[in-house]
């Protein structure tokens, strides 16, 4: 077994606990060194966007969002967006190593399971990305979740990657999403608890757009989870 990130060998040795638990064993996909470079968000964080900080008070960004949209999206993230995670996203999304979907699939899905939601809605990628990258990095990590493709990118939406823009440009992005009528007819969301899932929360622009779109269909609650913040 080789580490998916650095290629060094990994020994998967059974611990006594794993032996006695008599449960399926999850092999490590990543070596201890690479795994140790990720920062998990465990302590206090902004009660809005989930950004790690000393208190749980609303951060400046969230206050701005609240003023602008009159609504606060509660977001929780698994990891801090540090250099290791930047490198990971680079390899996963832009190089296109689809095997990396397995690295955080289990902890991300465990986090999703702790939130009580009726409908799980992943953020979509554009048709152009589908043609080039060949996968959606979010749904790749949701292999055992029952998610619904309720939103898609609008056909005539101008396609420039968020990651190529600066903060101002990102915030000025117009609504890129629309509802998929057929899917919505199958899974109506009015009165339901909706959970949005994305890979990285940076300015919040993407998730606030998606949330605004969903809110016009009157869900009872709307929250989000991202891999990184």
């Amino acid at each position, binding site marked *: 077994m080789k580490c998916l990130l650095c290629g060094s060998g990994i020994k998967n040795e059974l611990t006594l606990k794993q032996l006695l638990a008599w449960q399926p064993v999850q092999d490590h996909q990543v070596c201890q060194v690479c795994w140790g470079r990720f920062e998990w968000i465990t302590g206090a964080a902004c009660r809005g966007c989930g950004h790690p900080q000393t208190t749980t008070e609303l951060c400046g960004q969230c206050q701005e969002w609240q003023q602008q949209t009159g609504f606060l999206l509660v977001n929780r993230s698994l990891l801090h967006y540090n250099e290791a995670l930047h490198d990971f996203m680079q390899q996963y999304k832009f*190089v*296109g*190593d*689809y*095997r990396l979907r397995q690295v955080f699939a289990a902890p991300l899905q465990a986090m999703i399971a702790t939130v009580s939601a009726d409908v799980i809605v992943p953020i979509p990628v554009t048709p152009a990305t*589908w*043609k*080039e990258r*060949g*996968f*959606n990095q979010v*749904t*790749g990590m949701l292999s055992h979740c029952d998610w619904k493709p309720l939103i898609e990118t609008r056909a005539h939406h101008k396609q420039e990657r968020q990651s190529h823009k600066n903060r101002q440009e990102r915030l000025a992005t117009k609504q890129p999403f629309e509802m998929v009528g057929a899917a919505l007819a199958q899974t109506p969301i009015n009165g339901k608890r909706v959970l949005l899932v994305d890979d990285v929360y940076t300015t919040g622009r993407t998730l606030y757009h998606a949330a605004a779109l969903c809110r016009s269909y009157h869900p009872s609650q709307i929250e989000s989870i991202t891999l990184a913040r």
Partner: protein
Amino acid sequence: MEELLYGRRLLRQELPAEFVPPQQVEEMATMTIQDHDVRCLRCNTVTNKTEALLPRGQFFCPQCLTLGRVSTLASFYHLPEPNQFPSDRQPLTWEGTLSPLQEACAREVDQCLAHHQEHLLWAVTGAGKTEMLFRALAAAIRRGERLALASPRVDVCLELYPRLQRAFGHQQICLLHGRQTEPYTYRQLTICTTHQLLRFYHAFDNLIVDEVDAFPYASNPQLYFATQQAIKPDGGCLYLTATPGKALLQRVRRKQLTISYLPLRYHGHLLPEIKVRLVPKWRTKLGRQRLPQSLIGAMKKRLNSHQRFLLFVPHVADLAPIQTVLERQLGIPVTTVHAADDHRLAKVQAMRDEQINFLVTTSILERGVTFPEIDVLVLGADDAVFSTAALVQIAGRAGRSVSRPTGDVLFWVGSAAQNVTGAQQQIKFVNRKGRRLQR
């Protein structure tokens, strides 16, 4: 811009964004799909379908991702090699001379390139291989052939580039390796790492692979495949090495590959032979802060007579404990160096400038470096990290200068091992051939 594709096979993403593929471009499939696995047509790796799977029934190759992802979503662009080079009647500006032995070998190399043969040149460490290529390369350039010099090691490429640029003053040479920033240019002569060959397709009339025995080429079927792909179907290939591995020698025995030898160094002396000292359980002793008495003795002797030397050890992790023990027993500061050392270049330079008398190192100094008049000591030569080829290269660090063409090569081993006997045999073999030539 068309020339970007001459003799190359590239994905759209490897080409500049503004590039418009010309009409006559050949679009080629990137992968073949079999029942249970897929084969990448760039690196020839076969991957299980479950690992290579993308959603919606597409596949990608996880093996050669660093060069840009190959997937069934994309296709390769290729234009056949047209050999469109400005004619150069006098490409060689080098004015050195060859020894009679080198001369004979250079003639042989010239013949190989002229007939597009697949040939192995076994020249001992410090034989002056590069100079022997000049005449053959010049003749090939005059014939209008496209040529490449490839090596698995980037430092070998970086060292070759200025030497060839000086020797072929009017030629513009293209240098390619993974860490560079300059863009690719279409040139008659290319110097590149063997990984870069994966981007070429039927490009070269003659390809020379230097240090074929070095990591990672030796154990990597991907790179062997890349070499075959990069050569034109009627092109030739010359392998250079001081330490041919089993696979190459087997092909020689089966008459699939012709071979020539240069068993003497440029100064005409034989290789120093390896002397082995048995020190069982030296590692356990090291744990108790002790080193073999014979090693300490050998080091003291050399320090007293101002004989400079290198001490090789198997692992980076061995450096620190050995340094502590040595500093206590010898009573002088000890310098260690390894691949990830921040001061690596400065320390090696200090050794070159004779500011320090010895270095303790891992196999990073195994090839490509020359310190004149040194001895070579190896502790734990039987360790699996040292291949036979690596040991021959290490032994080849000794006796490289005309002023002191001999030198001691001492190995301390925990037990008898195949790699050590293999290295001894290889050196004895070329010395037998060398002795015949000396007469």
